[in-house]
């Protein structure tokens, strides 16, 4: 792994170096402008960021439904770069401003890394553990479901449902996630207020 490093030099040596680095004289002397003439001491020292990657995986843009393919490069378990997958017949390596923001999305300073809980009437969040949140949610879901469950209409027609819990979301999630959500919420709990962004 090469580090990006700029040599320290004195001011005069620096300007002399800069002059030697200046590409125009070399171009005028006939050096090809896209290769040799374009080189400078600094550019010779630059290394592609992707060289540092210890892992690369294929991904799909999380924004719109065009479905542009991406490559995610990571180092030490952290993403270091996201770019369009050149093999894709959809995007052939390109990404739009949103797709190109995927790296910024993954590393957004706004990202949350712990669970928050706001008690009824509270004026602020408090931090809770994932386990506590999961237990509490399971407990609330069971209680609310059971309170609102209707097994049958008065004439005996089966309803098997609860109107008291709703769920929104799915269009940003994986097919497998949608499958589990529908299976558990509808097939298991009897929820019918189950919707995603398809209509909005």
């Amino acid at each position, binding site marked *: 792994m090469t580090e990006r490093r700029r040599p320290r030099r004195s001011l005069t040596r620096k300007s002399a170096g800069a002059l030697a680095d200046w590409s125009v004289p070399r171009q005028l002397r006939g050096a090809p402008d896209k290769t040799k003439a374009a080189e400078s001491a600094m550019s010779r020292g630059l290394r592609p960021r992707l060289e540092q990657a210890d892992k690369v*995986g*294929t*991904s799909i843009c999380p*924004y*719109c*439904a*065009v*479905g542009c393919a991406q490559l995610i490069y*990571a180092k030490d*378990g952290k993403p270091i770069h996201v770019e369009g997958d050149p093999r894709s*017949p*959809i995007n052939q390596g390109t990404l739009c401003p*949103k*797709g190109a923001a995927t790296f910024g*999305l*993954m590393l*957004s300073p706004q*990202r*949350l890394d*712990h*669970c*928050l809980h706001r008690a*009824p009437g509270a004026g602020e969040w408090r931090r809770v553990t994932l386990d506590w949140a*999961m237990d509490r*949610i*399971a407990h*609330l*879901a*069971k209680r609310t479901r059971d*309170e609102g469950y209707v097994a049958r209409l008065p004439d005996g027609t*089966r*309803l098997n449902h609860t*109107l*008291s*819990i*709703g*769920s*929104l*979301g*799915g*269009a*940003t*999630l*994986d*097919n*497998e*996630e*949608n499958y*589990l959500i*529908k*299976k*558990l919420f*509808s*097939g*298991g709990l*009897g929820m*019918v*207020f189950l919707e*995603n962004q398809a209509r*909005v």
Partner: protein
Amino acid sequence: MPSLGATYGRGAATLPQWDLANSDCVLVMGSNMAENHPIAFRFVLQAKQRGATVIHADPRFTRTSALADIHAPLRAGSDIAFLGGLIHHVLEHDLWFRDYALPYTNLSTIVDEEYQGPEELDGLFSGWSEESKRYSPQSWQYQGVMMPSSLAEAFIETEGFCEAVKRLHEGPTPKDPTLQHPRCVYQILKRHFARYTPEMVERATGCPREVFLKVAEALARNSGRERTGAICYAVGWTHHSTGVQMIRAAAILQALLGNVGRPGGGILALRGHTSIQGSTDIPTLYDMLPGYLPQPHALKPHQDLAQYLEAETNPTGWWHNFPKYAVSLLRAWYGGAGNKENGFGYDFLPRIVGDHSQLPMTVAMRDGIIKGLFVMGQNPVVGGSNSLLVQRGLAQLDWMVVRDFAETDTASFWRDGHLVRSGELRPEEIGTEVFLMPASLSGEKAGSFTNTHRLLQWHDKVVDGPGDSRSEHWFTYHLGRRLKSLYADSTREEDQAIRALTWDYPVDEEGEPDAEAVLQEINGYTWPERKLVQDFKELKEDGSTACGCWIYSGVFPEEGRNLARARKPDGPDGPGTHLGWGFAWPDNRRTLNNRASADPEGRPWSERKRLVWWDEDKGEWQSPDKVDFIPTKRPDYEPDWEKKPAGMDAISGHQPFIMIPDGVAGLFVPSGLKDGPLPAHFEPVESPVSNPLYRQDANPAAKRWEHADNPIHATGDPRFPHMLTTYRLTEQHSGGTPTRLVPTTAELMPEGFCEIPTELAASLGIRSTDWVVLSTARGEIETRALVTDRLQPFRLDGRLIFQLGLPWHYGWAGYATGDIANVLTAVVGDPNTAMHENKALTCALRPGRLPRGKGES
């Protein structure tokens, strides 16, 4: 999308995006494709470079218009008048592709003598009940034949339905191939669209006649044997109270021009969120089960499995296989707990009783019916219509779980929301218990998305999400596990479904369930051996197979072969169908109804537009695509009606629309749509003007939710004189969470604004960047003015009507902020889909700012 489903048999894009490059003409309408689906728009530009004509019909002049050969401006919400005009033009001048449309559509089919349309009934179709505000489709049927719908729900509420549809086994639907019969679909169409003349188009849409005619001529010129055209649309069509019928009008036009199932032809539905197609196929939606099977309904003949299968199985066409798919799904969900007595677990399924979609959900929260809410990757405070109603609803809940990568506007409604800001409520008065849980993003979990053209593409897990971030696989799986243990000892009948639910997915050391194991269940396997099935043709109705979503079957045909993960594109010399890249449902077919790319005898319509053909020597259809037909069914096959054929046996060798019970595209739709068998122009529910076409102003069947918090403007209400249309920006995404909370995209589009026509701005003394207030009876917002000529005013019957354009992504969370556009919108929607009407409503505009509320000192 019921429109494409009802017309062609499947509610999805008919062609892959890259195939647009093969078009000779692309009409983009109801979409600003260059800005909102930029990477897909490259294919439109490739077509243009090869000589195709590109047309953009839209109220706004956008980058799509700038790159088009023709921009046709039209008044927001007048799309059916425009498209109806195109249909009229094509019929009137005999420009339709006769050799294609006559055999491949229901043009020659004869309709029941009771049928009457808006011509006779001044804006209504026969079957309207003023009392229930609903249509009965009884009189829309074919003569002597009841047609079940090809949509998720086949059953139609009419007398003797289950018996009446059996007539389909007895012979073809009644036809007059000479098209002379006054009640054949061709003659009905001619009468129905007679008033959609170029003059009427100009009057109703504001589009100059010459521009309209240029569009009509370009479309007609680029159709026929040698040429094809495509139509691309997005939510600019669906977000209307007539949205389904707008798409229907486009679907009729494309079938008349012979553009469906052929290279470079068809209809591309451009969808917004990354897997919105997937979440419709495997629906986190109230009214369907995976694979477009209807969710059982308490008030329909769905009492037990036998009834459900009888009511919902079409006698003819591919959907005759319905029982195999339904029983296999039940087996996947309930495994060994399903048996003959409980209908393989059918008795566990919840029954719906009405419309439980997002708009009525909003009302149900407000009215205290819904007490707990899960929100996963959605931001209803910004994205939901009538945001104040949404926020009042959230404040009524006992609890809410928000799962996202950061704090969304929805998660913080109790602290930063409008009700708190305006002083209506203090946080202490909001009793909602809120959980905010960090969610993993796509590079942080493995799984598949389904893109806008039905393509499943897998994404890998590359890194861990930060801290407690978890996937929805993880969350749902572990919530399910906890619930199963809470209910483990219950003997109550109502708890048996959750106890029976199969929930044994392998997990890794971090407890993450294996997404490939879930995809295998979706693909299907034999039961109980769990040997993966090759495709849906292996599914059985006797309980010996399990399959989570039949249309995805084939995505995982054997261990180790996850085809969503396939990454082999065609080379430059390849056919360009890219069968080795991802997996398209159904059965990896890239172009739907592609049998229609060959003539009835099985020959390609032309060399230039070759895709599928019959090979007599091999006795098989050939194609660089997968053939969307029975591979060995001869083109001259005719059903033997003596034998009362069922399923595909009743579909001839030259009927390409295999999901429709009579094998042809439904230009006239007898069953399945709630607002008529044909599209007719109605004004938006809120419009500054009366309907120039019929006495009936708005779609009579449009969904309206009467509620004190949801007042609707009357037509022509002088307090709200302008049209408002909402739209999206390239740099922002939907409810804004994944872009307003990300520095780069927030910086590119940092603040909300409203586009205001120059003349109107001048008359109100508004200059660009001034503050303005927009208001409706639902609420008011302040934003910055962007004075522009991009939104032309229109003159209708002597009145000048201005249109305003408002991006709807903004909210208070994140770096890029602005007032929420949906504070202005109403909970009203399309009768078929319950989609809202945020592309056309009325509003008022004034310069200045809003008074700051008590909560904001």
